[in-house]
Protein backbone atom coordinates (compact mmCIF):
# COMPACT_ATOMS: atom_id res chain seq x y z
CA UNK A 1 0.00 0.00 0.00
CA UNK A 2 1.18 3.52 -0.73
CA UNK A 3 2.43 5.39 2.29
CA UNK A 4 1.97 9.14 2.13
CA UNK A 5 3.98 11.05 4.65
CA UNK A 6 2.22 14.32 4.27
CA UNK A 7 -1.02 14.64 6.21
CA UNK A 8 -2.32 17.06 3.60
CA UNK A 9 -1.78 14.57 0.84
CA UNK A 10 -3.56 11.94 2.89
CA UNK A 11 -6.49 14.25 3.45
CA UNK A 12 -6.62 15.01 -0.26
CA UNK A 13 -6.54 11.34 -1.03
CA UNK A 14 -9.41 10.73 1.35
CA UNK A 15 -11.47 13.52 -0.24
CA UNK A 16 -10.87 12.10 -3.70
CA UNK A 17 -11.68 8.61 -2.51
CA UNK A 18 -14.91 9.79 -0.90
CA UNK A 19 -15.75 12.24 -3.66
CA UNK A 20 -15.60 9.80 -6.52
CA UNK A 21 -18.47 7.60 -5.39
CA UNK A 22 -20.51 10.67 -4.47
CA UNK A 23 -20.02 12.26 -7.87
CA UNK A 24 -20.57 9.08 -9.84
CA UNK A 25 -24.23 9.63 -10.72
CA UNK A 26 -23.19 12.70 -12.73
CA UNK A 27 -21.12 10.55 -15.04
CA UNK A 28 -22.94 7.26 -15.21
CA UNK A 29 -26.15 6.22 -16.85
CA UNK A 30 -29.01 4.63 -14.98
CA UNK A 31 -27.97 1.12 -15.96
CA UNK A 32 -24.40 1.65 -14.83
CA UNK A 33 -25.64 3.04 -11.54
CA UNK A 34 -27.74 -0.08 -11.24
CA UNK A 35 -24.55 -2.13 -11.51
CA UNK A 36 -22.78 0.15 -9.05
CA UNK A 37 -25.51 -0.63 -6.51
CA UNK A 38 -25.00 -4.34 -7.13
CA UNK A 39 -21.28 -3.92 -6.49
CA UNK A 40 -21.92 -2.03 -3.25
CA UNK A 41 -24.36 -4.65 -1.99
CA UNK A 42 -21.95 -7.44 -2.80
CA UNK A 43 -19.13 -5.49 -1.16
CA UNK A 44 -21.11 -5.28 2.08
CA UNK A 45 -22.07 -8.94 1.89
CA UNK A 46 -18.49 -9.97 1.17
CA UNK A 47 -16.95 -7.78 3.87
CA UNK A 48 -19.34 -9.30 6.40
CA UNK A 49 -18.28 -12.73 5.18
CA UNK A 50 -14.65 -11.77 5.50
CA UNK A 51 -15.18 -10.92 9.15
CA UNK A 52 -15.49 -14.66 9.53
CA UNK A 53 -13.03 -15.92 6.96
CA UNK A 54 -10.24 -13.37 7.00
CA UNK A 55 -10.39 -12.17 10.58
CA UNK A 56 -11.78 -15.07 12.59
CA UNK A 57 -10.53 -17.89 10.38
CA UNK A 58 -13.96 -19.49 10.09
CA UNK A 59 -15.17 -20.82 6.77
CA UNK A 60 -18.89 -20.33 6.63
CA UNK A 61 -20.34 -21.92 3.53
CA UNK A 62 -23.87 -20.88 4.29
CA UNK A 63 -23.51 -17.15 4.68
CA UNK A 64 -26.22 -16.59 2.11
CA UNK A 65 -28.75 -17.76 4.69
CA UNK A 66 -28.44 -14.46 6.60
CA UNK A 67 -28.57 -12.49 3.36
CA UNK A 68 -31.84 -14.29 2.63
CA UNK A 69 -33.13 -13.73 6.15
CA UNK A 70 -32.49 -10.01 5.73
CA UNK A 71 -34.19 -9.92 2.36
CA UNK A 72 -37.19 -12.03 3.33
CA UNK A 73 -37.41 -10.48 6.78
CA UNK A 74 -37.73 -6.94 5.48
CA UNK A 75 -39.78 -8.04 2.49
CA UNK A 76 -42.34 -9.96 4.51
CA UNK A 77 -42.66 -7.20 7.12
CA UNK A 78 -43.19 -4.69 4.33
CA UNK A 79 -45.62 -6.69 2.26
CA UNK A 80 -47.56 -8.81 4.72
CA UNK A 81 -47.64 -6.60 7.78
CA UNK A 82 -47.53 -3.28 5.91
CA UNK A 83 -44.64 -2.03 7.96
CA UNK A 84 -43.23 1.11 6.34
CA UNK A 85 -40.09 0.44 4.38
CA UNK A 86 -37.59 2.26 6.63
CA UNK A 87 -38.76 0.29 9.64
CA UNK A 88 -38.84 -3.00 7.78
CA UNK A 89 -35.38 -2.28 6.47
CA UNK A 90 -34.09 -1.49 9.94
CA UNK A 91 -35.59 -4.68 11.36
CA UNK A 92 -34.01 -6.92 8.72
CA UNK A 93 -30.47 -7.12 10.13
CA UNK A 94 -31.86 -8.03 13.54
CA UNK A 95 -33.85 -10.88 12.07
CA UNK A 96 -30.75 -12.04 10.24
CA UNK A 97 -28.66 -11.68 13.38
CA UNK A 98 -31.20 -13.74 15.31
CA UNK A 99 -30.90 -16.49 12.74
CA UNK A 100 -27.13 -16.26 12.81
CA UNK A 101 -27.09 -16.42 16.60
CA UNK A 102 -29.30 -19.50 16.57
CA UNK A 103 -27.36 -21.34 13.91
CA UNK A 104 -24.04 -20.11 15.22
CA UNK A 105 -24.75 -21.51 18.66
CA UNK A 106 -24.77 -25.01 17.21
CA UNK A 107 -22.05 -24.58 14.66
CA UNK A 108 -19.42 -22.53 16.37
CA UNK A 109 -18.44 -24.88 19.15
CA UNK A 110 -17.77 -27.80 16.86
CA UNK A 111 -14.51 -28.59 15.16
CA UNK A 112 -13.91 -26.61 12.01
CA UNK A 113 -14.70 -29.57 9.81
CA UNK A 114 -18.19 -29.83 11.26
CA UNK A 115 -18.62 -26.06 11.20
CA UNK A 116 -18.11 -26.04 7.45
CA UNK A 117 -20.65 -28.77 6.82
CA UNK A 118 -23.18 -27.45 9.28
CA UNK A 119 -23.22 -23.89 7.98
CA UNK A 120 -23.77 -25.21 4.48
CA UNK A 121 -26.46 -27.58 5.68
CA UNK A 122 -28.37 -24.91 7.60
CA UNK A 123 -28.36 -22.58 4.62
CA UNK A 124 -29.73 -25.32 2.39
CA UNK A 125 -32.37 -26.11 4.98
CA UNK A 126 -33.42 -22.45 5.08
CA UNK A 127 -33.61 -22.55 1.29
CA UNK A 128 -35.84 -25.62 1.46
CA UNK A 129 -38.10 -23.98 4.04
CA UNK A 130 -38.46 -20.77 2.02
CA UNK A 131 -39.04 -22.80 -1.12
CA UNK A 132 -41.69 -25.07 0.33
CA UNK A 133 -43.57 -22.62 2.56
CA UNK A 134 -45.48 -21.32 -0.41
CA UNK A 135 -48.29 -19.73 1.52
CA UNK A 136 -45.98 -17.55 3.55
CA UNK A 137 -43.03 -16.84 1.35
CA UNK A 138 -44.40 -17.33 -2.13
CA UNK A 139 -42.06 -20.27 -2.62
CA UNK A 140 -40.53 -20.51 -6.02
CA UNK A 141 -42.29 -17.39 -7.23
CA UNK A 142 -40.50 -15.32 -4.67
CA UNK A 143 -41.64 -12.23 -2.86
CA UNK A 144 -42.60 -9.46 -5.23
CA UNK A 145 -43.85 -5.94 -4.99
CA UNK A 146 -41.13 -4.62 -2.71
CA UNK A 147 -41.22 -1.01 -3.80
CA UNK A 148 -39.15 1.47 -1.85
CA UNK A 149 -40.64 4.89 -1.10
CA UNK A 150 -40.72 7.59 -3.86
CA UNK A 151 -37.40 9.11 -2.89
CA UNK A 152 -35.54 5.88 -3.48
CA UNK A 153 -37.22 4.76 -6.63
CA UNK A 154 -34.84 6.37 -9.07
CA UNK A 155 -31.46 4.92 -9.90
CA UNK A 156 -29.63 7.86 -8.32
CA UNK A 157 -31.83 7.85 -5.25
CA UNK A 158 -31.25 4.20 -4.50
CA UNK A 159 -27.58 4.54 -5.35
CA UNK A 160 -27.04 7.25 -2.75
CA UNK A 161 -29.09 5.31 -0.23
CA UNK A 162 -26.99 2.19 -0.78
CA UNK A 163 -23.77 4.22 -0.77
CA UNK A 164 -24.56 5.76 2.61
CA UNK A 165 -25.70 2.51 4.21
CA UNK A 166 -22.78 0.48 2.87
CA UNK A 167 -20.34 3.24 3.75
CA UNK A 168 -21.57 3.40 7.34
CA UNK A 169 -21.54 -0.38 7.69
CA UNK A 170 -18.04 -0.66 6.30
CA UNK A 171 -16.87 2.07 8.67
CA UNK A 172 -18.43 0.25 11.61
CA UNK A 173 -16.89 -3.06 10.58
CA UNK A 174 -13.53 -1.36 10.13
CA UNK A 175 -13.68 -0.07 13.68
CA UNK A 176 -14.72 -3.51 14.87
CA UNK A 177 -11.77 -5.32 13.40
CA UNK A 178 -9.30 -2.65 14.42
CA UNK A 179 -10.19 -2.94 18.05
CA UNK A 180 -9.46 -5.30 20.94
CA UNK A 181 -12.34 -7.45 19.70
CA UNK A 182 -10.77 -7.68 16.28
CA UNK A 183 -7.41 -8.52 17.78
CA UNK A 184 -8.98 -11.28 19.81
CA UNK A 185 -10.49 -12.73 16.63
CA UNK A 186 -7.14 -12.64 14.90
CA UNK A 187 -5.56 -14.37 17.87
CA UNK A 188 -8.23 -17.06 17.70
CA UNK A 189 -7.62 -17.44 14.01
CA UNK A 190 -3.89 -17.92 14.47
CA UNK A 191 -3.91 -20.22 17.45
CA UNK A 192 -7.18 -21.05 19.18
CA UNK A 193 -5.58 -23.11 21.91
CA UNK A 194 -3.20 -20.36 22.86
CA UNK A 195 -6.01 -17.81 22.74
CA UNK A 196 -8.02 -19.95 25.13
CA UNK A 197 -4.99 -20.27 27.37
CA UNK A 198 -4.60 -16.51 27.49
CA UNK A 199 -8.17 -16.20 28.66
CA UNK A 200 -10.12 -15.48 25.50
CA UNK A 201 -13.29 -17.51 25.50
CA UNK A 202 -12.90 -18.79 21.97
CA UNK A 203 -16.42 -20.00 21.36
CA UNK A 204 -18.03 -16.83 22.65
CA UNK A 205 -15.93 -14.62 20.40
CA UNK A 206 -16.62 -16.87 17.45
CA UNK A 207 -20.33 -16.80 18.22
CA UNK A 208 -20.37 -13.01 18.45
CA UNK A 209 -18.38 -12.71 15.21
CA UNK A 210 -20.80 -15.09 13.51
CA UNK A 211 -23.80 -13.12 14.72
CA UNK A 212 -22.29 -9.78 13.66
CA UNK A 213 -21.42 -11.17 10.25
CA UNK A 214 -25.01 -12.33 9.95
CA UNK A 215 -26.21 -8.87 10.99
CA UNK A 216 -24.35 -7.12 8.18
CA UNK A 217 -25.25 -9.80 5.68
CA UNK A 218 -28.87 -9.13 6.61
CA UNK A 219 -28.45 -5.45 5.74
CA UNK A 220 -27.02 -6.47 2.38
CA UNK A 221 -29.99 -8.77 1.87
CA UNK A 222 -32.52 -6.05 2.70
CA UNK A 223 -30.72 -3.63 0.37
CA UNK A 224 -30.91 -6.26 -2.33
CA UNK A 225 -34.59 -6.93 -1.74
CA UNK A 226 -35.58 -3.33 -2.36
CA UNK A 227 -33.08 -3.03 -5.18
CA UNK A 228 -34.49 -5.93 -7.15
CA UNK A 229 -37.94 -5.17 -5.78
CA UNK A 230 -38.23 -8.88 -4.96
CA UNK A 231 -36.76 -11.74 -2.97
CA UNK A 232 -36.19 -15.30 -4.12
CA UNK A 233 -35.41 -18.59 -2.39
CA UNK A 234 -32.14 -18.63 -4.34
CA UNK A 235 -30.90 -15.92 -1.98
CA UNK A 236 -30.23 -18.75 0.48
CA UNK A 237 -28.84 -21.26 -1.98
CA UNK A 238 -25.19 -22.22 -1.94
CA UNK A 239 -24.51 -20.52 -5.24
CA UNK A 240 -25.31 -17.28 -3.46
CA UNK A 241 -22.86 -18.24 -0.72
CA UNK A 242 -20.22 -18.66 -3.38
CA UNK A 243 -20.38 -15.02 -4.40
CA UNK A 244 -18.88 -13.48 -1.26
CA UNK A 245 -16.43 -16.34 -1.13
CA UNK A 246 -15.18 -15.85 -4.67
CA UNK A 247 -15.14 -12.08 -4.28
CA UNK A 248 -13.24 -12.24 -1.00
CA UNK A 249 -10.58 -14.62 -2.23
CA UNK A 250 -10.26 -12.69 -5.45
CA UNK A 251 -9.77 -9.41 -3.68
CA UNK A 252 -7.74 -10.64 -0.74
CA UNK A 253 -8.99 -12.02 2.53
CA UNK A 254 -6.05 -10.53 4.38
CA UNK A 255 -6.99 -6.94 3.78
CA UNK A 256 -10.07 -5.10 4.96
CA UNK A 257 -10.69 -3.61 1.52
CA UNK A 258 -9.96 -6.84 -0.32
CA UNK A 259 -13.63 -7.85 -0.39
CA UNK A 260 -14.57 -4.46 -1.85
CA UNK A 261 -12.06 -4.82 -4.64
CA UNK A 262 -13.07 -8.42 -5.18
CA UNK A 263 -16.71 -7.40 -5.48
CA UNK A 264 -15.92 -4.89 -8.20
CA UNK A 265 -13.98 -7.51 -10.15
CA UNK A 266 -16.60 -10.18 -9.56
CA UNK A 267 -19.55 -8.10 -10.76
CA UNK A 268 -17.58 -6.80 -13.74
CA UNK A 269 -16.62 -10.35 -14.64
CA UNK A 270 -20.20 -11.51 -14.28
CA UNK A 271 -21.47 -8.85 -16.67
CA UNK A 272 -18.70 -9.66 -19.10
CA UNK A 273 -19.08 -13.42 -19.05
CA UNK A 274 -22.88 -13.52 -19.15
CA UNK A 275 -22.75 -11.53 -22.34
CA UNK A 276 -21.10 -14.46 -24.09
CA UNK A 277 -22.33 -17.51 -22.32
CA UNK A 278 -24.97 -18.63 -19.88
CA UNK A 279 -22.57 -21.01 -18.13
CA UNK A 280 -21.47 -18.58 -15.50
CA UNK A 281 -21.31 -21.40 -12.94
CA UNK A 282 -18.38 -23.10 -14.58
CA UNK A 283 -16.53 -19.82 -14.70
CA UNK A 284 -17.15 -19.19 -11.01
CA UNK A 285 -15.89 -22.66 -10.15
CA UNK A 286 -12.83 -22.34 -12.30
CA UNK A 287 -12.20 -18.85 -10.97
CA UNK A 288 -12.31 -19.95 -7.35
CA UNK A 289 -9.94 -22.82 -8.04
CA UNK A 290 -7.48 -20.76 -10.07
CA UNK A 291 -7.41 -17.99 -7.49
CA UNK A 292 -7.01 -20.35 -4.54
CA UNK A 293 -4.21 -22.29 -6.20
CA UNK A 294 -2.50 -19.57 -8.15
CA UNK A 295 -3.09 -16.38 -6.20
CA UNK A 296 -3.70 -17.39 -2.60
CA UNK A 297 -3.31 -13.82 -1.44
CA UNK A 298 -5.74 -12.48 -3.97
CA UNK A 299 -5.22 -9.68 -6.41
CA UNK A 300 -3.85 -7.40 -3.73
CA UNK A 301 -1.27 -10.01 -2.91
CA UNK A 302 0.23 -10.42 -6.32
CA UNK A 303 3.89 -9.57 -6.23
CA UNK A 304 4.92 -8.89 -9.81
CA UNK A 305 8.43 -10.10 -9.21
CA UNK A 306 7.30 -13.45 -7.87
CA UNK A 307 4.57 -14.03 -10.38
CA UNK A 308 4.88 -17.44 -11.90
CA UNK A 309 2.44 -19.77 -13.52
CA UNK A 310 4.48 -22.77 -12.51
CA UNK A 311 2.38 -23.20 -9.40
CA UNK A 312 -0.56 -24.16 -11.56
CA UNK A 313 1.20 -26.95 -13.42
CA UNK A 314 -0.49 -30.29 -12.93
CA UNK A 315 2.87 -31.99 -12.44
CA UNK A 316 5.69 -31.24 -9.97
CA UNK A 317 7.97 -28.39 -10.80
CA UNK A 318 11.30 -30.21 -10.77
Amino acid at each position, binding site marked *: MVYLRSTWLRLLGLVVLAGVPLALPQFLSGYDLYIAVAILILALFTTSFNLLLGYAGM*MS*FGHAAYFALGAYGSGLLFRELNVPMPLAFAAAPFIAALGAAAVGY*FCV*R*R*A*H*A*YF*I*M*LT*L*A*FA*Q*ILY*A*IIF*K*WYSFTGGDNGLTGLRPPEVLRSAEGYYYFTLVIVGVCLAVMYRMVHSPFGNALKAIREN*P*IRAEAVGIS*VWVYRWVAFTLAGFFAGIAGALNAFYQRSAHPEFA*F*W*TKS*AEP*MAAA*ILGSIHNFFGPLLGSVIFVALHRLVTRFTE*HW*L*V*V*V*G*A*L*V*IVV*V*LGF*PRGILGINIRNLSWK*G*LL*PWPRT
Partner: protein
Amino acid sequence: MELVFLQLVGGLVKAMLLFLIASGLSLVFGVSRVINLAHASFYMLGAYLFYTVMEHVANRNLGYGLALVAVPVVVALLAGLLEMTLLRKAYKGGMLSVVMVTFGMIFLVEGITRIIWSDTQLIVSTPAFLKGAVSLGGFPFSLYYVPIVTVAPLVALGIWFLFYRTRWGTVVRAATTDREMLGALGVNVPRVFTITFIMAAWLAGLGGVLAAPTNALLPSMDSNVIIEAFAVVVIGGLGSIAGSFIAALLIGELLAFGLLVFPALSLALVFVVMAVVLTMRPWGLMGRQLPD
Protein backbone atom coordinates in the same frame (compact mmCIF):
# COMPACT_ATOMS: atom_id res chain seq x y z
CA MET B 1 -50.23 -51.08 7.70
CA GLU B 2 -49.30 -51.22 4.08
CA LEU B 3 -48.40 -47.54 4.21
CA VAL B 4 -46.09 -48.12 7.14
CA PHE B 5 -44.40 -51.00 5.35
CA LEU B 6 -43.98 -48.94 2.20
CA GLN B 7 -42.44 -46.09 4.15
CA LEU B 8 -40.19 -48.48 6.03
CA VAL B 9 -38.92 -49.93 2.79
CA GLY B 10 -38.61 -46.53 1.17
CA GLY B 11 -36.63 -45.32 4.14
CA LEU B 12 -34.38 -48.35 3.98
CA VAL B 13 -33.66 -47.75 0.31
CA LYS B 14 -32.92 -44.10 0.97
CA ALA B 15 -30.68 -45.12 3.84
CA MET B 16 -28.67 -47.47 1.67
CA LEU B 17 -28.11 -44.78 -0.93
CA LEU B 18 -27.19 -42.24 1.72
CA PHE B 19 -24.76 -44.73 3.21
CA LEU B 20 -22.96 -45.16 -0.10
CA ILE B 21 -22.48 -41.43 -0.42
CA ALA B 22 -21.78 -40.66 3.21
CA SER B 23 -19.29 -43.47 3.71
CA GLY B 24 -17.15 -42.08 0.92
CA LEU B 25 -17.26 -38.62 2.43
CA SER B 26 -16.37 -39.95 5.85
CA LEU B 27 -13.58 -42.09 4.44
CA VAL B 28 -11.90 -39.24 2.61
CA PHE B 29 -12.05 -37.07 5.67
CA GLY B 30 -10.73 -39.76 7.93
CA VAL B 31 -7.71 -40.38 5.75
CA SER B 32 -6.77 -37.00 4.33
CA ARG B 33 -8.76 -34.54 6.45
CA VAL B 34 -10.40 -33.25 3.30
CA ILE B 35 -14.06 -32.33 3.38
CA ASN B 36 -15.00 -32.98 -0.17
CA LEU B 37 -17.88 -30.59 -0.68
CA ALA B 38 -18.11 -31.82 -4.25
CA HIS B 39 -18.74 -35.40 -3.19
CA ALA B 40 -22.42 -35.28 -4.09
CA SER B 41 -21.37 -34.03 -7.51
CA PHE B 42 -19.77 -37.42 -8.14
CA TYR B 43 -23.07 -39.01 -7.16
CA MET B 44 -24.77 -36.76 -9.70
CA LEU B 45 -22.22 -37.65 -12.39
CA GLY B 46 -22.85 -41.31 -11.71
CA ALA B 47 -26.57 -40.85 -12.23
CA TYR B 48 -26.14 -38.85 -15.44
CA LEU B 49 -23.59 -41.25 -16.91
CA PHE B 50 -25.97 -44.08 -16.10
CA TYR B 51 -28.66 -42.26 -18.06
CA THR B 52 -26.33 -41.92 -21.04
CA VAL B 53 -25.42 -45.60 -20.96
CA MET B 54 -29.06 -46.63 -20.80
CA GLU B 55 -29.86 -44.34 -23.71
CA HIS B 56 -27.19 -45.79 -25.92
CA VAL B 57 -27.29 -49.48 -25.21
CA ALA B 58 -30.10 -51.21 -27.03
CA ASN B 59 -30.54 -54.10 -24.67
CA ARG B 60 -31.65 -52.40 -21.48
CA ASN B 61 -30.85 -55.31 -19.21
CA LEU B 62 -27.35 -55.51 -20.60
CA GLY B 63 -27.10 -51.75 -20.31
CA TYR B 64 -27.99 -51.88 -16.64
CA GLY B 65 -25.35 -54.47 -15.87
CA LEU B 66 -22.79 -52.58 -17.89
CA ALA B 67 -23.61 -49.30 -16.22
CA LEU B 68 -23.48 -50.82 -12.75
CA VAL B 69 -19.97 -52.01 -13.38
CA ALA B 70 -18.53 -49.32 -15.64
CA VAL B 71 -20.04 -46.02 -14.53
CA PRO B 72 -18.67 -45.96 -10.97
CA VAL B 73 -15.26 -46.75 -12.39
CA VAL B 74 -15.48 -43.86 -14.83
CA VAL B 75 -16.56 -41.49 -12.08
CA ALA B 76 -13.74 -42.77 -9.89
CA LEU B 77 -11.15 -42.20 -12.59
CA LEU B 78 -12.44 -38.70 -13.23
CA ALA B 79 -12.27 -37.98 -9.54
CA GLY B 80 -8.73 -39.29 -9.45
CA LEU B 81 -7.82 -36.93 -12.24
CA LEU B 82 -9.35 -33.99 -10.38
CA GLU B 83 -7.58 -34.98 -7.19
CA MET B 84 -4.18 -35.27 -8.80
CA THR B 85 -4.40 -32.08 -10.81
CA LEU B 86 -6.29 -29.81 -8.46
CA LEU B 87 -6.53 -31.07 -4.92
CA ARG B 88 -2.93 -32.11 -4.49
CA LYS B 89 -1.81 -28.58 -5.17
CA ALA B 90 -4.19 -27.33 -2.55
CA TYR B 91 -2.93 -29.53 0.30
CA LYS B 92 0.01 -27.30 1.09
CA GLY B 93 -2.28 -24.30 1.50
CA GLY B 94 -3.98 -25.92 4.43
CA MET B 95 -7.62 -26.73 4.98
CA LEU B 96 -8.80 -23.39 3.61
CA SER B 97 -7.32 -24.02 0.18
CA VAL B 98 -8.49 -27.60 0.06
CA VAL B 99 -12.08 -26.88 0.97
CA MET B 100 -12.22 -23.89 -1.36
CA VAL B 101 -10.98 -26.02 -4.22
CA THR B 102 -13.61 -28.67 -3.55
CA PHE B 103 -16.18 -25.89 -3.39
CA GLY B 104 -15.03 -24.66 -6.78
CA MET B 105 -15.23 -28.22 -8.03
CA ILE B 106 -18.94 -28.34 -7.21
CA PHE B 107 -19.58 -25.58 -9.69
CA LEU B 108 -17.21 -27.00 -12.26
CA VAL B 109 -18.86 -30.41 -12.22
CA GLU B 110 -22.38 -29.00 -12.06
CA GLY B 111 -21.63 -26.55 -14.86
CA ILE B 112 -20.19 -29.26 -17.08
CA THR B 113 -23.18 -31.47 -16.33
CA ARG B 114 -25.48 -28.68 -17.44
CA ILE B 115 -23.51 -28.19 -20.62
CA ILE B 116 -23.45 -31.85 -21.59
CA TRP B 117 -26.89 -32.93 -20.48
CA SER B 118 -28.78 -29.60 -20.53
CA ASP B 119 -30.93 -28.22 -17.75
CA THR B 120 -34.03 -30.23 -18.41
CA GLN B 121 -35.22 -32.99 -16.19
CA LEU B 122 -34.19 -36.42 -17.40
CA ILE B 123 -35.81 -39.69 -16.51
CA VAL B 124 -34.22 -43.09 -16.65
CA SER B 125 -36.75 -45.84 -16.84
CA THR B 126 -36.00 -49.09 -15.10
CA PRO B 127 -34.84 -51.98 -17.23
CA ALA B 128 -37.35 -54.70 -17.98
CA PHE B 129 -36.06 -57.29 -15.58
CA LEU B 130 -36.50 -54.94 -12.69
CA LYS B 131 -39.99 -53.78 -13.43
CA GLY B 132 -42.86 -54.92 -11.33
CA ALA B 133 -43.09 -55.97 -7.76
CA VAL B 134 -42.69 -58.97 -5.60
CA SER B 135 -44.85 -59.93 -2.70
CA LEU B 136 -43.11 -59.85 0.65
CA GLY B 137 -45.35 -61.26 3.34
CA GLY B 138 -48.39 -59.92 1.56
CA PHE B 139 -46.97 -56.44 0.95
CA PRO B 140 -45.74 -55.23 -2.44
CA PHE B 141 -42.01 -54.77 -2.74
CA SER B 142 -40.90 -52.94 -5.83
CA LEU B 143 -38.33 -54.94 -7.78
CA TYR B 144 -36.04 -52.07 -8.57
CA TYR B 145 -35.31 -51.69 -4.89
CA VAL B 146 -33.68 -55.09 -4.91
CA PRO B 147 -30.33 -54.05 -6.39
CA ILE B 148 -30.07 -51.16 -3.96
CA VAL B 149 -30.93 -53.16 -0.89
CA THR B 150 -28.59 -55.99 -1.86
CA VAL B 151 -25.66 -54.11 -3.32
CA ALA B 152 -25.26 -51.54 -0.57
CA PRO B 153 -24.88 -53.97 2.34
CA LEU B 154 -22.55 -56.08 0.20
CA VAL B 155 -20.47 -53.00 -0.42
CA ALA B 156 -20.50 -52.23 3.29
CA LEU B 157 -19.27 -55.75 3.93
CA GLY B 158 -16.66 -55.31 1.25
CA ILE B 159 -15.42 -52.11 2.86
CA TRP B 160 -15.21 -53.80 6.22
CA PHE B 161 -13.26 -56.67 4.71
CA LEU B 162 -10.97 -54.28 2.87
CA PHE B 163 -10.17 -52.27 5.95
CA TYR B 164 -9.82 -55.00 8.52
CA ARG B 165 -8.53 -57.97 6.58
CA THR B 166 -6.15 -56.61 3.97
CA ARG B 167 -2.80 -54.90 4.08
CA TRP B 168 -4.16 -51.99 2.14
CA GLY B 169 -6.83 -51.54 4.76
CA THR B 170 -4.21 -51.43 7.45
CA VAL B 171 -2.37 -48.72 5.57
CA VAL B 172 -5.56 -46.68 5.27
CA ARG B 173 -6.37 -47.10 8.94
CA ALA B 174 -2.84 -46.07 9.78
CA ALA B 175 -3.24 -42.98 7.62
CA THR B 176 -6.34 -42.12 9.59
CA THR B 177 -4.41 -42.28 12.82
CA ASP B 178 -1.07 -40.73 11.99
CA ARG B 179 -0.17 -39.62 8.51
CA GLU B 180 3.27 -38.33 9.28
CA MET B 181 4.39 -41.54 10.89
CA LEU B 182 3.05 -43.46 7.96
CA GLY B 183 5.08 -41.32 5.62
CA ALA B 184 8.13 -41.80 7.80
CA LEU B 185 7.65 -45.53 7.52
CA GLY B 186 7.97 -45.31 3.77
CA VAL B 187 4.41 -45.32 2.52
CA ASN B 188 3.60 -42.97 -0.35
CA VAL B 189 1.01 -40.97 1.54
CA PRO B 190 -0.16 -38.71 -1.34
CA ARG B 191 -0.87 -41.85 -3.30
CA VAL B 192 -2.90 -43.20 -0.39
CA PHE B 193 -4.89 -39.96 -0.43
CA THR B 194 -5.53 -40.23 -4.15
CA ILE B 195 -6.59 -43.85 -3.99
CA THR B 196 -8.89 -43.17 -1.06
CA PHE B 197 -10.42 -40.28 -2.97
CA ILE B 198 -10.94 -42.55 -5.96
CA MET B 199 -12.58 -45.21 -3.80
CA ALA B 200 -14.89 -42.66 -2.26
CA ALA B 201 -15.87 -41.36 -5.69
CA TRP B 202 -16.49 -44.94 -6.80
CA LEU B 203 -18.91 -45.32 -3.90
CA ALA B 204 -20.66 -42.06 -4.74
CA GLY B 205 -20.87 -42.99 -8.42
CA LEU B 206 -22.34 -46.35 -7.51
CA GLY B 207 -24.88 -44.56 -5.36
CA GLY B 208 -25.77 -42.38 -8.33
CA VAL B 209 -26.21 -45.37 -10.63
CA LEU B 210 -28.43 -47.17 -8.13
CA ALA B 211 -30.45 -44.07 -7.35
CA ALA B 212 -31.03 -42.96 -10.93
CA PRO B 213 -34.14 -45.05 -11.63
CA THR B 214 -35.75 -43.84 -8.41
CA ASN B 215 -35.51 -40.13 -9.14
CA ALA B 216 -35.73 -37.63 -11.94
CA LEU B 217 -32.29 -36.32 -12.88
CA LEU B 218 -31.72 -32.62 -12.48
CA PRO B 219 -28.46 -30.67 -12.44
CA SER B 220 -29.47 -29.53 -8.98
CA MET B 221 -29.71 -33.03 -7.53
CA ASP B 222 -26.31 -32.70 -5.90
CA SER B 223 -27.56 -29.88 -3.72
CA ASN B 224 -30.50 -31.97 -2.54
CA VAL B 225 -28.35 -34.89 -1.58
CA ILE B 226 -25.48 -32.98 -0.04
CA ILE B 227 -27.39 -31.83 3.03
CA GLU B 228 -28.60 -35.31 3.76
CA ALA B 229 -25.11 -36.69 3.23
CA PHE B 230 -23.68 -34.07 5.56
CA ALA B 231 -26.36 -34.82 8.13
CA VAL B 232 -25.45 -38.51 8.02
CA VAL B 233 -21.75 -37.80 8.34
CA VAL B 234 -22.21 -35.30 11.13
CA ILE B 235 -24.50 -37.60 13.12
CA GLY B 236 -22.50 -40.70 12.42
CA GLY B 237 -19.19 -39.04 13.07
CA LEU B 238 -16.53 -38.11 10.56
CA GLY B 239 -14.15 -40.94 9.86
CA SER B 240 -16.41 -43.73 10.99
CA ILE B 241 -17.91 -46.01 8.32
CA ALA B 242 -19.99 -47.86 10.88
CA GLY B 243 -21.25 -44.51 12.12
CA SER B 244 -22.28 -43.61 8.59
CA PHE B 245 -24.22 -46.85 8.31
CA ILE B 246 -26.15 -46.33 11.50
CA ALA B 247 -26.74 -42.64 10.87
CA ALA B 248 -27.84 -43.39 7.30
CA LEU B 249 -30.46 -45.78 8.60
CA LEU B 250 -31.60 -43.18 11.10
CA ILE B 251 -31.84 -40.34 8.59
CA GLY B 252 -33.33 -42.53 5.89
CA GLU B 253 -36.16 -43.74 8.07
CA LEU B 254 -36.59 -40.28 9.60
CA LEU B 255 -37.03 -38.69 6.19
CA ALA B 256 -39.42 -41.43 5.10
CA PHE B 257 -41.65 -41.18 8.16
CA GLY B 258 -41.19 -37.42 8.36
CA LEU B 259 -42.83 -37.22 4.96
CA LEU B 260 -45.90 -38.87 6.47
CA VAL B 261 -46.12 -36.56 9.45
CA PHE B 262 -44.57 -33.26 8.33
CA PRO B 263 -44.41 -33.36 4.55
CA ALA B 264 -43.24 -29.81 4.09
CA LEU B 265 -40.74 -29.73 6.89
CA SER B 266 -39.23 -33.21 6.93
CA LEU B 267 -35.90 -31.63 6.18
CA ALA B 268 -36.25 -29.37 9.18
CA LEU B 269 -36.73 -32.53 11.21
CA VAL B 270 -33.28 -33.64 10.09
CA PHE B 271 -31.94 -30.33 11.35
CA VAL B 272 -33.56 -30.90 14.72
CA VAL B 273 -32.01 -34.36 15.04
CA MET B 274 -28.62 -32.99 14.03
CA ALA B 275 -28.89 -30.25 16.62
CA VAL B 276 -29.86 -32.76 19.31
CA VAL B 277 -27.10 -35.22 18.48
CA LEU B 278 -24.50 -32.48 18.31
CA THR B 279 -25.53 -31.07 21.65
CA MET B 280 -25.28 -34.43 23.34
CA ARG B 281 -22.37 -35.97 21.47
CA PRO B 282 -20.41 -33.26 19.64
CA TRP B 283 -18.34 -35.62 17.59
CA GLY B 284 -21.21 -37.68 16.29
CA LEU B 285 -22.31 -41.10 17.40
CA MET B 286 -19.12 -42.90 16.56
CA GLY B 287 -16.68 -40.24 15.51
CA ARG B 288 -13.51 -39.11 17.17
CA GLN B 289 -12.86 -35.79 18.81
CA LEU B 290 -11.35 -33.50 16.20
CA PRO B 291 -8.84 -30.72 16.79
CA ASP B 292 -10.07 -27.21 16.12
